[in-house]
């Protein structure tokens, strides 16, 4: 393609990317480097239905002057990134010095918001992503071997978990696993323990969240793999059968290698999505047991006093986290591409 043609071809996409991806990221990065002005506090008398009281309040006029002078606020550099709500450098250093064993150090680390969020997020990513790929593949193979007439109906129903809004889907599951819900009650009955509660134990809550993650995303993997199966060369499969390959061997040596580029694609998307796990934590009311970086951003913005700088810093760290997570897959794809040309 000529450079000129390429330029005009790419321009609309490029502009959209600049406007909707690059600019917001720049704005978030800037926001994360600045913090609000020092509050100018005054004591005033405040009165209401319950009487009068001397109370601290913000001096609006003095604050307005400060804001006019420096609209962005105070420059904090990387200060927010290093504070207790994020990387907590000084707290980690203290914990390292005061801990006698690694287990104790880990205990201290788990008490800091960022590391607690990372522990759940990474566990979620590395459990859910492979399971989604395996489940997607199994469903795709099963549906592919169905009779033509049944296929349409089965595909429709298998897609439902992915079609449902994630928040609604997680709420449905949340009510089912409640100790008075159908799944929670059945589990109590099966285990013979009337106090068994999925929501009261951190371990069981993590498992519930992961089950939700697999349930929600498997249809996505299924659809991609199912499309890939339609392009499977019949002759290769037939020659494998002539060579006496079992059904498992056919899958292992013919089908999976054929679908490998799609597996990479699904893995990429799932790594990104799962790293940003959010809806089930809100839907399951699970913040006592599991938190993620996205939940931390939501929490910073949802309080009575919004912490924009803190939320922005967590957002930037999420972007960096996704980049680190994707780098092995991206490097591999790039090598394959280089190898081909």
């Amino acid at each position, binding site marked *: 393609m000529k450079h000129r043609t390429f330029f005009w071809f790419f321009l609309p996409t490029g502009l959209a990317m600049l406007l909707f991806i690059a600019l917001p990221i720049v704005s978030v990065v800037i926001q994360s480097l600045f913090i609000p002005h020092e509050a100018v506090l005054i004591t005033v008398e405040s009165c209401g239905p319950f009487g009068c009281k001397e109370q601290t309040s913000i001096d*609006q006029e003095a604050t307005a002057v400060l804001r006019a002078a420096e609209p962005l606020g105070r420059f904090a550099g990387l200060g927010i990134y290093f504070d207790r709500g994020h990387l907590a450098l000084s707290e980690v250093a203290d914990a390292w010095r005061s801990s006698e064993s690694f287990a104790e150090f880990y205990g201290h680390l788990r008490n800091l918001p960022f590391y607690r969020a990372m522990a759940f997020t990474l566990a979620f990513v590395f459990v859910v992503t492979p399971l989604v790929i395996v489940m997607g593949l199994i469903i795709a193979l099963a549906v592919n071997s169905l009779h033509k007439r049944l296929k349409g109906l089965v595909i429709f129903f298998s897609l439902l978990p992915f079609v449902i809004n994630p928040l609604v889907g997680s709420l449905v599951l949340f009510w089912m696993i409640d100790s008075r819900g159908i799944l929670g009650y059945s589990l109590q009955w099966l285990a013979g323990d009337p106090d068994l509660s999925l929501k009261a134990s951190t371990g069981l809550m993590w498992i519930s969240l992961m089950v939700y993650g697999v349930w929600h995303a498997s249809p996505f993997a299924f659809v991609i793999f199912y499309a890939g199966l339609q392009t499977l060369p019949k002759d290769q499969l037939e020659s494998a059968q002539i060579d006496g390959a079992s059904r498992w061997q056919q899958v292992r040596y013919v089908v999976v290698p054929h679908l490998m580029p799609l597996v990479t694609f699904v893995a990429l998307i799932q790594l990104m999505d799962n790293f940003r796990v959010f809806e089930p934590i809100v839907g399951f009311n699970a913040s006592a047991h599991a938190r993620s970086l996205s939940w931390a951003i939501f929490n910073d913005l949802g309080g009575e006093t*919004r912490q924009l700088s803190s939320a922005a810093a967590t957002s930037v760290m999420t972007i960096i986290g996704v980049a680190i997570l994707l780098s092995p897959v991206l490097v591999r794809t790039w090598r394959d591409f280089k190898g081909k040309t």
Partner: protein
Amino acid sequence: MIFEKVAMASALALMTGTGAMACEINARVSIVGNEFPAIQTVGAEAQACTGGEVKTNLTADHQEINLPGMQGDPAEYTSAIIANSSIVALMNDDVIRPIDDLVAAHGQGLASTQLITIGGKVMAVAFMANAQHLVYRADVLEQIGVEPPATYEDMLAAAEKIRAEGIMDNPVGGAYAAGWNIAQEFNNMFLGFGGEHFKPGSAEPNVANEAGVKTLEMMKALTDYMNPDYLTHDSNATNAEFRAGNVAIMNMWGSRAATLVTAEGVPQEVVDGFAIAGPMTVGGGDIPASTLWWDGWTVAKNISDAEAEATFIAMMNGTRPELMADEDIRTQAVWLIEGYEPTEAAVGVFAAANAGTIPYPMLPYMGLMHTALGNELSDYMQGKESAEQALKDVEAAYVAAAKEKGFL
């Protein structure tokens, strides 16, 4: 000319005092606020005004949208319905205007106690009061031969008796969901133990102390008698447990208690046994372990004067004294409006006010403390760390946030 017409109309309406009064406005009004029954009434009555469009957006997520919706110029929302906790966020960012002039022009009929003045300027008009107080099953307490508990210690004893007699497994209810709810329960109990959230005259935290530890220990003792899922139960879920007959004693919001057993499908014994009393004290203190709240409305700063006036008139119509003649509206809340005759549902909130309950602190940095408490207490409740460590975490989380916001 139009101004005069509006003034005439509202003055006339006030004088005639008819139920369906003419409320004339000449600019747009847009209201954002919470969604409980009393606020729905205020919104609907404000919308009865004619001459300009009155929009309402009443949602439980109002706190997340009212500030961004008022920061623009012109602001999307011309009025936010807020409480003594949430007015602080709007004042911190200077998005609501003093309304002394509007009160003088159109505020006839307002009781002086309705005016929220800060530094001598009227910033909001309160229309209802709220507090958390005891809600219980009179039939169950009678069965075990116990008076309604006046202290949390009595509550624990009653709970033990109910369980021991096999009436209920988990007789205590509580909105202990991680986040805002559990932090509020901490605030109640902490104030009941005589605690103060901040060192006097500063934004330095003051919860990692004896009162804090006692507070957490009492909360933990209560959770032994709660549904094991308590960390996921907000006030709606707690009410559902009460309605289902699984809970006999709980600390509940006055604004929700009034309509608690009117829902469909509530068993008859729950409806008959339902009773309300004042808030409990704790640890031998005389101040109830609860907080007093008011709900009120504000007028946005970044709007034209005509819009501000229309907003004031519409909101006055939404909270006019004539509404107090309506029995249904009267039971929805403890109204601060002239002419309100308390109903039976109001005894809890009145008892709270008379017993010297402390109002929820209206400090610029209280919101950050509330968030820190909500995030850091659940580890202790699950037995993963000591009370001292949990309170230290609360202070550390608060300090990091307060430094970011420029309070420390």
